[in-house]
């Protein structure tokens, strides 16, 4: 007999509905099945006959499920239905990456041009910020616009987000340490540092550290948002599993 997870996977494969709509449909069908069985029993039908009649009338066929998928197709997928999938994916990824790069460069360029942020930490942290924004943007797009992100996708996004926060901290710290090391080398070999120059190095290091912590905090907020999405998706998955079990107590595949 298939396990609950197998039934759920089979149902998700057959039913191309966003998870929330899928759970709502199954909740509605279960409620109607129970109501119809109760009403038919009141009318004098045997329980087995009532259940069979109710299932025949209400349990959605493949055709009905396909029609439901059309009704509940997300607006974005309706608008892009005529576009080739490969080209669409490329356009989606490019758009997310372009927005992330612009958002990451926007605060960095003025700081570097103003001499407040050294180029090496600035470049490193820009890359990390861009990756973080791209990851957050991609999963937000999949969750809210394309509406095809399931629990596993969101968990993968959350792990990547945590990893990128770590990368921002480690690579940012490394870039700053190398910058200080290079400046110290120049001062060791050269005429030596003056007080104002040393203070300038401290200011640069502070700005770089603050920027690095800002990027990390941004990443953590993104991770918290993804975590929220994961919790909601897990609740829906659990409900879907319970609904599937209640609708298919001893049945195997249809």
């Amino acid at each position, binding site marked *: 007999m298939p396990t609950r997870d197998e039934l759920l996977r089979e149902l998700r494969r057959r039913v191309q509905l966003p998870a929330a709509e899928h759970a709502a449909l199954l909740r509605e069908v279960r409620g109607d099945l129970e109501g119809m069985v109760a009403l038919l029993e009141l009318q004098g039908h045997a329980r087995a006959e009532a259940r069979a009649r109710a299932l*025949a*009338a*209400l349990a959605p066929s493949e055709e009905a499920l396909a029609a439901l998928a059309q009704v509940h197709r997300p607006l974005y997928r309706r608008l892009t239905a005529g576009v080739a999938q490969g080209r669409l994916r490329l356009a989606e990824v490019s758009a997310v990456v372009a927005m992330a790069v612009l958002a990451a460069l926007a605060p960095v360029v003025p700081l570097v041009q103003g001499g407040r942020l050294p180029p090496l930490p600035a470049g490193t942290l820009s890359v990390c910020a861009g990756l973080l924004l791209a990851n957050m943007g991609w999963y937000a797009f999949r969750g809210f616009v394309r509406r095809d992100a399931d629990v596993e996708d969101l968990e993968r996004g959350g792990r990547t987000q945590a990893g990128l926060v770590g990368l921002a901290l480690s690579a940012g710290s490394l870039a700053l340490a190398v910058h200080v090391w290079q400046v110290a080398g120049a001062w060791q070999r050269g005429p030596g540092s003056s007080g104002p120059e040393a203070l300038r190095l401290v200011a640069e290091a502070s700005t770089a550290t603050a920027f690095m912590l800002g990027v990390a905090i941004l990443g953590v907020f993104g991770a918290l948002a993804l975590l929220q999405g994961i919790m909601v998706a897990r609740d829906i998955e659990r409900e879907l599993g319970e609904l599937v079990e209640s609708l298919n107590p001893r049945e195997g595949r249809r």
Partner: protein
Amino acid sequence: MTQQPNLSKHVNELLILATLRSGPAHGYEIALAVERDSEGTFSFQHGTLYPILHRLEKEGLIAGAWHGRGRKRRTYALTSKGEAYLVGETRQVKSLFQDLIRILEGPTHAYA
């Protein structure tokens, strides 16, 4: 030439809207009412009721709501837009069937 109406598409929608004219109902109540009122001529099978209900709801012709405590159930009610649509479509279907019956029953005069 006027556009031919898609009867099969309309019939199921109109049956649901007409049933809801007497008041809000659950999906299974709609299915049972249609079968009872048409004496078995029309019936919803294999969950075909749900795509129609959800489409009508998206178009604003009916309004769905969850009711009850614990295990909630969904009911649907006719909206004013749905009422107006039903009146208009009923008139159209009536006219269509009158034309159809007139043709089927044949002309009252013979061709020379």
